[in-house]
C-alpha cells in the first residue's frame, strides 16, 4: 500500500451495522458507505441505477440494499441491480484497517459524474 492511495474516511464505529452513511465528494458524486449486519463494508456511488434514488437510505439485508424509491435490489458487492432489473452503479474499492475505513482515492475521483 502506498500511503496517499487510500483516503481515510473515519472510524468504523460511525456506521451502525445494517445501515449506511453518506460522503459528499467535492467535484464528484456522493458516495454511500455501507456496513452490513455481518460487518462487511462497501462503498458505492449514492445513486440508484434506476432513477438516481439515494441508496444510502434503503433497507440493507445481507449484502443487498433495497432502493428507497422503487425497491430495486442492488448488490453492494458489484453495484449491480439484482433480479429482473438491469443496471449498475459504480462501486468504490474500500478497505478497513485497524478500525479505520479507507477508500481508494483514484476511484473516489473516478466516481465523478459524466
Amino acid at each position, binding site marked *: 500500500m502506498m500511503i496517499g492511495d487510500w483516503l481515510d474516511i*473515519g472510524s468504523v464505529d460511525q456506521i451502525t451495522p445494517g445501515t449506511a452513511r453518506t460522503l459528499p465528494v*467535492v467535484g464528484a458524486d456522493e458516495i454511500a458507505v455501507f456496513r452490513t449486519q*455481518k460487518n462487511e463494508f462497501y462503498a458505492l456511488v449514492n445513486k440508484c441505477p434506476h432513477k438516481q434514488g439515494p441508496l444510502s437510505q434503503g433497507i440493507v439485508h445481507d449484502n443487498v440494499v433495497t432502493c428507497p424509491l422503487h425497491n430495486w435490489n442492488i448488490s453492494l458487492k458489484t453495484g449491480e441491480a439484482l433480479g429482473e432489473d438491469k443496471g449498475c452503479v459504480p462501486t468504490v474499492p474500500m478497505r478497513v484497517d485497524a478500525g479505520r475505513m479507507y477508500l481508494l482515492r483514484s476511484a473516489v475521483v473516478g466516481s465523478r459524474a459524466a
Partner: protein
Amino acid sequence: MNAPASLMEKDRTTPVKERLVVIGNGMAGCRAVEEVLARDPARFDVTIFGAEPRVNYNRIMLSPVLAGEKAFDDIVINGEDWYADNGITLVSGDPVVAIDRATQTVVAKSGRVEPYDRLLIATGSDPFIIPVPGKDLAGVVTFRDLDDVDKMLAAAETGGSAVVIGGGLLGLEAAHGLSLRGMKVTVVHLMPTLMERQLDEAAGYLLKSELERRGQTIVTGGDTAEIIGKDGHVAGVKLKDGREFAADIVVMAVGIRPATGLAKAAGLEVERGIVVDDHMVTSDPAIMAVGECVQHRGACYGLVAPLWEMCRALADAACEQPSGYEGSVTSTKLKVSGIDLFSAGDFSGGDGAEDIVMRDAARGVYKRVVVKDNKLVGAVLYGDTADGNWYFDLLKKGEDISDIREALIFGQAFASGGALLDPNAAVAALSNDAEICGCNGVSKGKVIETINAGACSLDAVRSTCKASASCGSCTGLVESLLALTLGGEVQSGPKTLCKCTSFSHDDVRRLILEKNLRAIPQVMQELHWTTPDGCSSCRPALNYYLLCAWPGEYEDDQKSRFVNERLHANIQKDGTYSVVPRMWGGLTNPRELRAIADVVEKYNAPMVKVTGGQRLDIFGIKKEDLPAVWADLNAAGMVSGHAYGKSLRTVKTCVGSEWCRFGTQDSTGLGVKLERMTWGSWMPHKFKIAVSGCPRNCAEATIKDFGVVCVDSGYELHVGGNGGIKVRATDVLCKVSTEQEAMDVCAAFIQLYREQAHYLERTAPWIERVGLDHVKAGLFDDPDSVNRLAARFRYSQTFCQDDPWAERAAGKHAELHQHLAEVRPLQVEIA
C-alpha cells in the same frame, strides 16, 4: 562480529553453528524452534528470550485455567527439560528492549547483550486498552497471560461483580470463567451482535440468549464512557448512554494489536504488523518474524492455526528447503463448555453466493453454509458443530460440492450417504407411525389420513391435524407427504409472508403470541426462516408485528424500517425530504403559519403546498437540515404529522355545527379529539380518519379508514373506505349517540385492525378479505370487546405519543442526518 564462517571453521574441529536468537517464548516462537529442530537439530545455537517468567505454555488454554477446568501444569507445552535436552538457553522474565541490526545483537532489560546470526521476532500481540478515563485504575485487567488469570482469580475469590468490556471470543471466555468462579458478570459489547466478526445476527442472538439464561448480563450496543473508581480501585463502568454497572474487576478484552515496537524501533518495515514475505523473512534478511506480530500479504492473524503454518514455512526456509506460506483460512470455536459454536470462512453472502439455512428451534440449532460457484465458502454453526471440521475441510480444499449440494446442510453423514438426495424417497421409506411433527405429536399415518380426507395444501394440513403448525421445522416432510399422496394435485395455500418463510402473515402473528417471541432474530430462529437475516419485506413486517404484540417492551428496530419512517419525513425523487407538521383536525393559527413561513424561508424550501389532507407540506428539505427544521416547528408547538408512516395520517374535518348552517354536531372538535387520541400509533398501513358535520359529508368521511358522519341523533360510524388506487366507499359499522362512544369504537376498531390485518394491508382490503361481519363480531358479539380493545389501544398509545421529531431535534440518532465526512480527493487527506 560477522566473520565469514570459513575463517572460523579453520580454528574449530566441529562445524560452527549459527546463533539463532528468538524474542518471545510464546506459542509461535517455541513452535518455530521445534520445527527447526525437527529438520536439522545441529544447525543452530538457540537462545530464547521470554518476557514472562515461565516456560512455554499453551496460551489458548488460559480460558479453561480461568474456568477451573485445567491447572497451569496441564497446559505447559515445553517444560524445562525440553530446553535442556535441546541445548536451548532460556532467558525468561527478561524482555528484550532493543535490536541493534548493525552489530547483530539484542539487548535485554537486565543489560544482557546477545549476538545473533539469525534473529526471530515472535512477540505476539498486546491487548488493546480503550482510552477512557479510569483505564489505569487498579482492578482493570486484560486477558493475555497467566499473570492476568491470577489477577482475575484473586478478584473472584471475594465474589462480587465483574464487567467484561468486549464480547468477542476472549471476552466471552473471560466472562464464562469469572461466572463459573462465582462472580456476577456483565459483558459490555460495542456492536449489536456478539462475536460479530465470526457470527451472523441469528447465531449471535442464540448465543446471547444462552449466556443470559446462564445468568450473565449481556449489554450489546454498549459504548463505554468511563471506568469509575473509588479509592484508586475500580468500582464500576459507565456507558455513554448513562447506564452504570458496578464492578470489582474490569476485564478489557476489546482486541489485540501486534507487538511491533521492537521491530519498528529497529527500522524494520512495519505496517499493522511486522511485514514478512512468504518465508517469514522481514525487510532485513537476517531477521525473521512469526506469529501474531507479523503481517503477511496484508493479513494479521489472531488465532493459532495460521501460526503453525507460518512456523512450518519458516523452518523450511531457515533449513534451506524453502516451501513458502500462502496465508490461511481460519475457523473459530468458542471454548465455553456447553455452547457449541463454529464459524469459518466468508459468510457475508453476496453475488452468486447462496445461503443454505437450517434451523431446529427445538434443539436450539442454527446452521448456515454459504455456497458460491459450487464451492463452500463459509459456514456458521450454532448448537450442533459436529460437522464443523468437515465443512472447514471442504472450504479449504475448495472442492466442488454440486453432487452433495442438496444434502450439504444436513452434514457429512447424510451427504456422503446420498440418502437425502431425493427427500421424497426418504419420507416414503418412513413407517406409518414415524413421528413427523414433534411439536404436536403427529405421525406420518395421521398426516396421510388428513391429506386423504381432503387437506390438499400445506395450510390445510396445518389447520387440520396441526402438523408443522408450530415451529415449522417439519414443513419439508409435510410437503413431501403431500407430493407423495397427491402427486400433482397439491394446492398452494395462502401466500407466505415472503420468500424467507413457509408461514403466512396470520401464522406468524399467531405464533409470535403463542411462543412469546420478542425479537426479530428470535422469530426467524423459532419459525425456521430460510434466510439469515430476512429481506426488505419481512423485516418491516416483523418489526411491526412485534411492536403491536409487545407494546412498551419491544425495542423498535430502526434498520428494519423504510427510510420515511426512519427519517420521519417523506423521501422525494431527488433524495430531499418533505416535512408535514400536524395541524389538528385541519385547524391552524398565526403562530403555526408563521413558523412554517419562517422555515420555508430559512431553509430555502422550493415549495410549500396545501395537501389533500388539510395541512401544509414543506418540500425540498435536505436530510442534514431536518433536525433543525423540526426544532423550529417544535418551538411553535407543532409535532410530526406522520405523513410518512404506516400510522395515523390525518383527521379531516369540516366546519360543523359551530359555523355551518347545516352542521348537526361539533365535527371539528370531535376530529381534533380523535386525532389527539390516535396520533403516533403504528399500524399495518396508513390510516385516515374524517369527521363530517352532516350527511353532505364535506370531509369525505365515506372514503376513509374510519369515518364519522354526524346526524341529529348522534354519529354514524363508517369503516373500510379508501380513496386511493381503488376507490371503495365505507361500510356502516354502527350508530352511536355520544362523542365518547364514537371515540371508544374508533379506538377499538383501530386496535382490531392493528392486531389482525396483514402488514401493508389497508382497512379496505382487510375488510374485503375477512368480511364486515367478522369485524362486527370482533367488536360487538361480546359486550365488553369494545372496552377491552380500546383499553389495549390506549395502553399502546402511552408509548407512542412522544413526538419523534423532538427526539431528533434534541440529537437522537444524529448519525442518520449527518454525512460521514466530506472528501476533496484532489486535495489532501481529510481530517
